[in-house]
């Protein structure tokens, strides 16, 4: 099987045959329809990295209105819940060890006294640091609340002081307020961050796995020999095998984008046309990987396993979950060879920031270059298998 000749009538009949087979293959149908549903449920509902419901084990040794006021400040923030009240500090370990409480807060007995006498007051906080990123977020909340509390207390005290001296004309300034405004994902909803990324995962998984499986299936079932002895050119075969999955990939992107917008209310600020346009280059990369995999796999199971061998590291190094800037430098360089990294950036740019070609052209260029190199390498390797 050689040649770069592509005859439209033959290619069309090959593609039609592929679609029929895909739609009749249970395993492929499961992958095609099942995996998007599964991933949407997981990343739309289950995965939530937003931190709330922090459970406090509380030991209030002061038991004054001031100490209660401080605790109310925690619980009314919306992040903390008063999980249990303790009698002694020794009990804290029990709740922390079991993971029933996220933190232990101890208000000392001289809290009010120190507060009024102007001495330094101290709070004891013990945090479960198992999940380091969660712990650091909790720590930030605590600092925020305790500083709010002291600022409020001071303001009140100063105001009372001023009032008691009768000089109502003294103008009084609030302390310098810091107002935070977060752009692009104002609620910091993790769903908005992950769901667009799911597009990039799904398309890779489906195009790589299904294409390589469908090529290997021909080899397994012996139909490959029948194809090789026929006048079908290798270009026709490769195009016939990859185009159906490219079409499916683009369709999948459109449908999932619609579901993300309509059902999960993920903001979509950019251009849909640009999304589809850049996905074509991304799919070119993933299809090259699938062709490569089909040359090293003898059975469909092997093709599946090889797909995951590529997919898992590619996902880890794409910035989908772990930010690339936080990786050791050498890994940051490796991610430059990862098509998923660029498409992830493009998708998030389009969804959340609403940016287009003028901002994302670096990523698009990288995908184009990567795609062209990969596809020529894998076609070369694929053809060598028939010599």
């Amino acid at each position, binding site marked *: 099987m050689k040649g770069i000749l592509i005859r439209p009538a033959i290619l069309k009949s090959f593609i039609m045959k592929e679609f029929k087979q895909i739609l009749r293959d249970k395993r492929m149908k499961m992958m095609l329809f099942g995996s998007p549903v599964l991933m949407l449920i997981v990343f739309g509902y289950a995965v939530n990295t937003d931190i709330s419901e922090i459970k406090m084990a509380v030991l209030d040794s002061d038991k004054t209105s001031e100490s209660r006021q401080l605790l109310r400040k925690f619980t009314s923030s919306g992040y903390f819940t008063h999980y249990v009240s303790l009698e002694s500090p020794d009990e804290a370990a029990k709740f922390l060890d079991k993971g029933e409480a996220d933190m232990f807060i101890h208000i000392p007995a001289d809290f009010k006294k120190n507060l009024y006498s102007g001495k330094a007051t101290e709070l004891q906080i013990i945090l479960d640091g198992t999940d380091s990123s969660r712990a650091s977020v909790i720590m930030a909340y605590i600092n925020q609340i305790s500083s709010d509390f002291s600022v409020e207390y001071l303001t009140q005290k100063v105001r009372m002081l001023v009032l008691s001296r009768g000089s109502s004309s003294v103008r009084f300034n609030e302390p310098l307020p810091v107002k935070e405004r977060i752009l692009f994902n104002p609620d910091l909803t993790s769903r908005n961050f992950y769901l667009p990324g799911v597009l990039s995962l799904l398309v890779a998984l489906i195009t790589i796995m299904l294409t390589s499986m469908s090529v290997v299936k021909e080899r397994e079932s012996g139909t490959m020999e*029948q194809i090789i002895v026929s006048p079908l050119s290798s270009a026709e075969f490769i195009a016939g095998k990859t185009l159906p999955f490219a079409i499916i990939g683009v369709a999948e992107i459109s449908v999932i984008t619609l579901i993300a917008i309509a059902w999960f209310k993920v903001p979509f600020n950019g251009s849909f046309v640009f999304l589809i346009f850049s996905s074509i280059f991304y799919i070119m990369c993933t299809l090259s990987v699938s062709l490569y995999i089909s040359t090293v796999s003898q059975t469909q199971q092997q093709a599946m396993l090889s797909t995951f061998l590529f997919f898992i590291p590619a996902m880890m190094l794409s910035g989908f979950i772990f930010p690339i800037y936080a990786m050791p430098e050498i890994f940051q360089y490796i991610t430059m060879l990862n098509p998923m990294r660029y498409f992830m950036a493009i998708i998030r740019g389009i969804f959340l920031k609403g940016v287009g070609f003028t901002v994302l052209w670096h990523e698009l260029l990288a995908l184009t270059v990567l795609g062209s190199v990969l596809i020529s390498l894998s076609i070369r390797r694929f053809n060598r298998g028939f010599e």
Partner: protein
Amino acid sequence: MEISVEVQNLTKRFDGFTAVDSINFSVMKGEIFGFLGPNGAGKSTTIKMLCGILSPTEGTGTVSGYDIVTEQDKIKNTIGYMSQKFSLYSDLTVRENLQFFGSIYGLTGKKLQERIDYVREMAGIGDRMDSPVDILPGGIKQRLALGGAILHDPPVLFLDEPTSGVDPLMRRNFWELIYDFSRKGKTIFVTTHYMDEAEHCSRMALVIAGKIIALDTPDNLKRSLPYSVYALRTDDFIKVFDKIAKLDFIEEAAIFGSDIHILCDNKYKLKSELGKVLNKSGITDYRIERIPATLEDVFVTHARKLGV
């Protein structure tokens, strides 16, 4: 006579293992040429080299006058290939399979429909054109696979163990189809390990361990055997078999049903020699008869000579 397939010193080695060892033969147009040998003799490897699935390590060959290494593309339209494995899409229907394979050979429209109708008739598909080929009975599947290979009406047909796993009646049917093709002037190159099937061939090559050890018409092969074949019938044939198997004038003895078949070099007079031995053992109730040699006898003789 026009030569259809010809090879010279054709050799295929896989990592030091020689699957096909410098074979030479030529097949005439319209011939049914058989390749007979045990599994692993290199039959499929030879066919795959001729069809362009494998490339030869050494040697040359032509199919329909085109070089098997440099002119593969031209060969493709002139050959039909039926592999050992069922090689149609089991998840597509009969019609879909035929339409697909027809289309990749460039058949369209009326011509394609004509050929599909022909295969439908030939393979006995009847009204099952829209059933998945998966659920067709074995014999029909096999004829359909043949149909897939001849859709484009090729002058040369390569059949790799086409009848393995098919019942005897279906096999007979199948061979009738092959005779029919041969009458229409098509060249048929067929591999098999069934001795009785080899009898159908115009000429045949015996292959063992990658080498052709004999090549002729089935009749000539049997005639050239330097042995005569006898059938010995007696009551206690198992006891007798043990007694005579080791005799030095007997080349080969084998039990066939309740008979013992004996291969004996032509220089001995088996009836009298064996008579003496049996009489000595007190066996008097027996009958010895000369019978015609079969291809199996030919095959076994050649295989023994090679020490296989």
